[in-house]
């Protein structure tokens, strides 16, 4: 049984290390980065070649919603092939990618059926050799562009030919420096109060503070990490159902006291699956009769009934708990009564007779003050304490010192 535990410890450590490094490693390589105020920029550009057709030049700037997207073939979490948008710095000369422009709405077709179209924005779009119109609904090539359609222009399976990462004129220490970007340089727009974010050169304006440097790759893999997290969470649900199924199966076999409640578990699982699998009654609508019945008439009613019982328990608990035993208890009860009454329409009804001049003494305003000032101060202290505890616990989980969670 040692090897599963070692695997758990190893995976936990690597996953934790990734997220820690993602937070602490700067987005660009320290020492090889340059920081300054933008005076002007020249956007990145590249050419892409398909077969024997001449190479098509593209510039990475937003020209009427026609910024080129570089799409590289990848596989999703289920292993299905998909095209994922990739920054230019991650594709070098010689890489194969699909270049997509758009989308735009067709206003009218000019010339031949596949030659040129005028977009709804009035911009003239025409195909170059190697490019094709692609339907936005299915991303399949279309032979006839028709008015009203939403289209992309695509150059499929093109070979990236020449790459110019662009340049920027920066003001550093009163000097103007023309900085040419490297093939893998990332541009981080900095701001005084918030974290920096990656931008393209054409998104920068004169006066923006920017940092250029070779990318450290953690941020690029965040989406993969998010998918990994999604898979693990879904697996946990599956394991949960399996575990519950085993427990209830054992109940049915051994038949201890109250064994028949396990039948309800299996019935609920079957009904839940049936409701989830039910086909959409009318394609393109949200109507699913059996699922709607299960959710709105069964689950909603049962959950609401269970939850509404809380109100009665809370009323009885409040009656017993709020007793003036000492000064602190009296203070707590007083503030609880003010907040409770202030949160209901009766609060303003009882005190609004004092008029606008004394509105600070209206019950809702006193309740709001209690929540915004003493409550906020108390919660901030509480959050600091909780976070310190959470940090210590997280460290124990990460290093698998919490033995109950690592399979022991």
């Amino acid at each position: 049984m040692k090897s599963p535990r070692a695997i758990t410890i190893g995976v936990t450590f690597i996953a934790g290390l990734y997220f820690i490094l993602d937070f602490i490693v700067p987005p660009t390589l320290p020492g090889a980065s340059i920081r300054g105020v933008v005076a002007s920029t020249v956007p990145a550009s590249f050419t892409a070649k398909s077969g024997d057709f001449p190479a098509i030049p593209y510039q990475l700037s937003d020209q009427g919603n026609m910024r080129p997207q570089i799409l590289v073939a990848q596989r999703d979490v289920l292993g299905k092939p998909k095209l994922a948008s990739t920054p230019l710095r991650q594709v070098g000369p010689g890489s194969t990618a699909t270049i997509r422009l758009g989308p735009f709405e067709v206003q009218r077709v000019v010339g031949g059926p596949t030659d040129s179209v005028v977009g709804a924005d009035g911009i003239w779009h025409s195909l170059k050799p190697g490019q094709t119109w692609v339907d936005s609904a299915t991303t399949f090539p279309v032979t006839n562009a028709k008015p009203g359609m939403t289209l992309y222009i695509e150059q499929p399976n093109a070979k990236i030919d020449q790459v110019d990462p662009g340049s920027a004129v920066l003001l550093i220490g009163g000097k103007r420096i023309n900085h040419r970007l490297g093939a893998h340089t990332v541009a981080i727009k900095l701001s005084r109060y918030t974290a920096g974010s990656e931008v393209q050169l054409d998104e920068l304006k004169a006066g923006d503070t920017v940092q250029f440097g070779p990318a450290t790759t953690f941020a690029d893999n965040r989406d993969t990490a998010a998918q990994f997290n999604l898979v693990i969470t879904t697996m946990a649900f599956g394991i949960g159902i399996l575990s519950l199924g085993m427990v209830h199966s054992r109940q049915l076999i051994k038949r201890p006291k109250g064994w028949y409640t396990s039948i309800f578990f299996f019935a609920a699982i079957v009904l839940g699956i049936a409701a989830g699998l039910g086909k959409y009654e009318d394609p393109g609508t949200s109507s699913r009769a059996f699922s709607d019945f299960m959710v709105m008439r069964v689950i909603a009613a049962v959950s609401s009934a269970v939850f509404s019982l809380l109100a009665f328990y809370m009323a009885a608990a409040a009656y017993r708990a709020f007793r003036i035993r000492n000064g602190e208890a009296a203070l707590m009860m007083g503030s609880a009564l003010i907040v409770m009454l202030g949160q209901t329409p009766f609060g303003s009804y009882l005190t609004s007779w004092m008029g606008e001049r004394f509105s600070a003494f209206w019950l809702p305003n006193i309740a709001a003050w209690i929540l915004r000032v003493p409550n906020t101060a108390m919660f901030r202290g509480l959050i600091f304490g909780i976070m310190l505890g959470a940090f210590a616990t997280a460290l124990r989980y990460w290093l698998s010192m919490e033995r109950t969670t690592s399979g022991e």
Partner: protein
Amino acid sequence: MLKFLARLDVVPRRTIYIFLLIAAGIPFLVPIRLPMYIWKETRSAFDATQVVQPNKVVAICSNWDPGSQGENWPQYEAIVAQCMVNHTPFIVFSVDSDPVSPQLAETVNEREAKKYGCVYGRDWVNLGLTRGAPLTMGAIGRSVKSVFQHDYRQIPTQNYEKLPLMRRVRDVRDFSCFWVVQYQPDLNWVVFLDPNSRVPILFACAGIGSSGYYPYLSSGQLKGMVVGTRGAAEYEVMLRDKFGKRFDDRELRGQKLVVPLAFGNLVIIVFIIAGNIGTIARRRLEAQAKVFR
């Protein structure tokens, strides 16, 4: 007299239940409307949703479920009504919630859409449910369509013929504001959705857990908050003041549910005060008994 008052110290649980049932039940039988006082955080949330920037959408994370529908349903209804009466397009999705959350949200969306003539795909899109917070929160901020490749009706989100609204929804920069409607909204949204804090984040939460969000309101990380059924009722009042007859509140629940809630709270307050009178009376009786002994 003192003996009678001392009996208030130990009122049987069932008596409290009966009084609470009567107080909360009467407003359902006799329609009553109470005047509403608008709290500052509700007004801020309303104003943030009202500010519509061109080509931007309101994003709503609808994570409420049948258990919390007493408070979250009227809140969600009021927010959707505001978007629809204002013709502000919105997207709605659920993250790590009960699997029935998207269905509950869609029920409200479709009913309100009939009132205001809104069309699915053009005025709103329901993107369904996903899991994996908080990393998914960051991923939604970076690219909505990479997280939600299909909507709740299984239409691809890249299908701009059927979902023209999705053409303008790329990342968090396309949100004019971001709502989380949940019993206890996850504060990770504040950290992970938009690290640059450009989008106003608004919470619609249950009354009982609201006190924990006030530090984030005062720091400005939350731009507004709708608290419980009371907040929903205030929202409806603001909608009526703003839009007059254009706003149709016939089926909305906020102002209807706030009345039994207020009466229920009043009963609890009365019992707390009565219990304390009973305790004082009992102590006096005990002190008198000691003196006579």
